């Protein structure tokens, strides 16, 4: 009896369920018939070369784009599993700035460059009603420290920051509301290798420590090896192989995955 109950407890409840998701641009297919389930705290990587449809998929999953067909269900805090495209626009926008985070490849797309670092971090808190300056600032300092930014720079604008610092600020800005799901589009793209390593390690620590689920789009297999529990390999808009990250990378079955893995240069 108790063993059965324990087993049932272990069956986790999904956070995000994607069914038959397709996005076409007229004749051109962005992504086709995508299916997967994401559980709380799980990190999934989406890899593939440019034009494979991985960014399109991320845009549809994160409600930044309407799908042509299929559903994206999310475990809303007060409603349970709901198709995000049946939500009203304000509900969806609220979800995107509270329970979700979106980290853009280019920090300029995700930050307000004319607003100080503290204001960037505090914006989401103010959006959900925080009206105590001291508290907002304390949260800003706390998060700058968590993403290893010099807290004395809280009043500096992000345009005075390096690319790596801007990316870390973008992460802090997203995580301040304790989202349960974060979407990341090439989070290390455009950064120096040494800066990449630091960012990856930081992300890895935060994701594990906070139990955040994440969907990470990248063409860099080292990024998913380090961050992702699971992997989906995309080619021409379709998922050609999926599974545990180390399974897919160490024992690839699909010809395209084998090509992808064998093409990585060894250092």
């Amino acid at each position: 009896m108790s063993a059965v109950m324990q087993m049932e407890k272990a069956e986790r409840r999904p956070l995000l369920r994607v069914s038959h998701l397709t996005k076409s641009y007229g004749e051109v297919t962005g992504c086709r018939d995508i299916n997967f389930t994401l559980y709380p705290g799980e990190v999934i990587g989406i890899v593939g070369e440019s034009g494979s449809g991985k960014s399109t998929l991320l845009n549809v999953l994160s409600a930044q784009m309407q799908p042509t067909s299929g559903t994206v269900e999310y475990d809303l805090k007060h409603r349970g599993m709901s198709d995000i495209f049946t939500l009203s626009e304000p509900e969806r926008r609220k979800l995107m700035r509270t329970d979700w985070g979106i980290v853009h490849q280019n920090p300029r797309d995700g930050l307000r460059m004319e607003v100080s670092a503290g204001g960037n971090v505090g914006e989401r808190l103010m959006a959900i009603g925080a009206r105590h300056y001291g508290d907002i600032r304390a949260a800003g300092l706390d998060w700058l420290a968590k993403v290893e930014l010099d807290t004395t720079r809280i009043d500096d604008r992000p345009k005075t920051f390096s690319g790596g610092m801007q990316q870390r600020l973008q992460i802090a800005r997203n995580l301040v509301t304790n989202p349960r799901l974060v979407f990341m589009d090439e989070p290390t793209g455009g950064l120096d290798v040494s800066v990449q390593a630091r960012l990856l390690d930081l992300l890895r620590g935060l994701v594990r420590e906070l139990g955040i689920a994440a969907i990470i789009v990248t063409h860099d297999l080292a990024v998913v090896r380090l961050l992702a529990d699971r992997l989906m390999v995309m080619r021409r808009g379709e998922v050609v192989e999926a599974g545990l990250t180390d399974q897919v990378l160490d024992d690839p079955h699909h010809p395209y995955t084998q090509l992808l893995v064998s093409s990585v240069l060894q250092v």
Partner: protein
Amino acid sequence: MSAVSAVQWDEAYNFAYLDEQTKRMIRRTILKAIAIPGYQVPFGGREMPLAYGWGTGGVQVTASVIGPDDTLKVIDQGADDTTNAVSIRRFFERVAGVETTETTEDADIIQTRHRIPEFPLREGQVLVYQVPQPEPLRKLEPRETETRKMHGYAEYGLMSVRLYEDIARYGHIATTYSYPVMVNGRYLMSPSPIPKFDNPKMENNPAIQLFGAGREKRIYAIPPYTQVKSLDFDDHPFKVQTWKECCALCGAKSSYLDEVILDDRGGRMFVCSDTNFCEDRRAKGHTGPLGADPAALAFAHKEPAQ
């Protein structure tokens, strides 16, 4: 007012300059604006015989609501005698033949740039504000599509970010004019560039307050007796400006003061920005520290531009 007043205006123009269809269109816009306090209603702004930035929005609103029996007051930064105020007053004397006044109490319509009169307004009066930028979020969010959604969904966190930036940079909310307000608990609104000193006067005001932005082609309104709250933080509450000085001419301690340079030897004084209010007090015998100073009085009695 008599129903058969002998109104005379320059008959080369339609009454109040605008054609009747345009005035109806603007009146419909105004009705909608009053029905949705604080909401910016787009309208088909017309070319006016003055440049954008000189009050084209306010003039169109005034032209649409003014009647032959109305008395008009126009102020610019609180003064009845500055060029812009005088010109607009003359414009309406010519195209509508209306009476004009400098006395707040006597006016039916008061068009204003950057101030609310010190004397309390009464029911039946209309205060028309000239507005350069109707969108309080514009400096932070350049996309109109996005700011419209923010208003639509009451997503106003961004406005607090602006106040946060003030405190972070200056230690207090340094915004002193165009200080954003929430109208009727729903719409975020720019009060036009009035000093924040005047913000509390907007709340529960018996008069109708209309805002016209000519270049941006938007009209919005605060109906009488409406809740108008200035945004702030719990630990940095909204405060209006105060002065150590009183008005040098009339001795008023509770009015909005302008600093005036008297000479090139460092002489200066603080005087009421509302000229009508100041004159009224002096006429009633109040006097300030420079109330008998000839140089200071020269400013007080300067003639309107000819």
